């Protein structure tokens, strides 16, 4: 088992906040409360962008890239496809993008391109 990695305190707080928002947004989407779901996804996306910046600063580029992908996905779920596409593309330019994630993102970019 690995030791817990140290993140900046602010990043830690934001990670908890957006995790709750994503959990709730997913439930709300499933029960057809789409407006409430989109509002939460949008807020989560904005927080994910802040986390990305904080983890970049903390020299945790690979982790930051995952948060950037999550930000893009949350924008997609919130209906902001332009922003989602831009962030997926930004994530793909990062060397720190985990190999196993790259293929998933390529598919998501193609899907967004056809919307």
């Amino acid at each position, binding site marked *: 088992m690995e030791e817990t990695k140290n993140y900046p305190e602010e990043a830690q707080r934001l990670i908890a906040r957006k995790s709750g928002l*994503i959990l709730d947004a997913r439930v709300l989407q499933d029960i057809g409360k789409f407006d409430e779901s989109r509002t939460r996804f949008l807020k989560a996306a904005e927080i994910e962008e802040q986390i990305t910046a904080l983890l970049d600063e903390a020299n945790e580029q690979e982790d930051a890239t995952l948060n950037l992908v*999550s930000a893009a996905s949350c924008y*997609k779920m919130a209906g902001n496809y332009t922003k989602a596409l831009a962030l997926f593309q930004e994530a793909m330019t990062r060397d720190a993008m985990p190999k196993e994630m790259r293929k998933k993102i390529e598919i998501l970019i193609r899907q967004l391109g056809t919307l």
Partner: protein
Amino acid sequence: MTQDIHSYAIEDISQWHPNVECEHVISCAVALMMEHGENACCFTVECRDWKNEGLDIPDVVKFKVIWSQETVERVRRTLTMFHRHHLIEHGAIAIACIAIAKIFDLRPLEVMQIGNGADYWLKNKQEMLEVSGTERADELERRHREKTEQLLESLTRRYGYVFVCCFTNCRAIFSIHRPRGDRNGRNKELS
């Protein structure tokens, strides 16, 4: 040897995972557990492969989940909105939240949206978690195998965990996994 059965109030999830507000997943779990008891439900968790990793975790852990009348009232107000498979899928996350905080201490939990699905990470992205629920007791093992396969596909250099639970018989499996090909419990990339 008898094991003490601890009781955990499901509403306390947001204290054990500070700032993770997850009112809706709690409602889903309580809606299903109310079929077993008015305000409490006992879960039996099989802890698989932990001993192989040299970890002092019992093979079986039992715990009782309790909930408040206020939660019951909220669940009754919202229950009709849910399809049963949504209750099970989201309810499993609430039970996993209890297990990772109170039995295994794998915090902090992070939830990410990746495409249309959710990814769960532990200990600040050091380890991954797959979660799933079912209401068919005979499906628990198969679901565990599927989630394990799914986990191992994305597990390249970290440990990972699979938590699957069945709300019909209140049993769960919580297993620990290393990346494929890593026989020393630690991948070369980490050393």
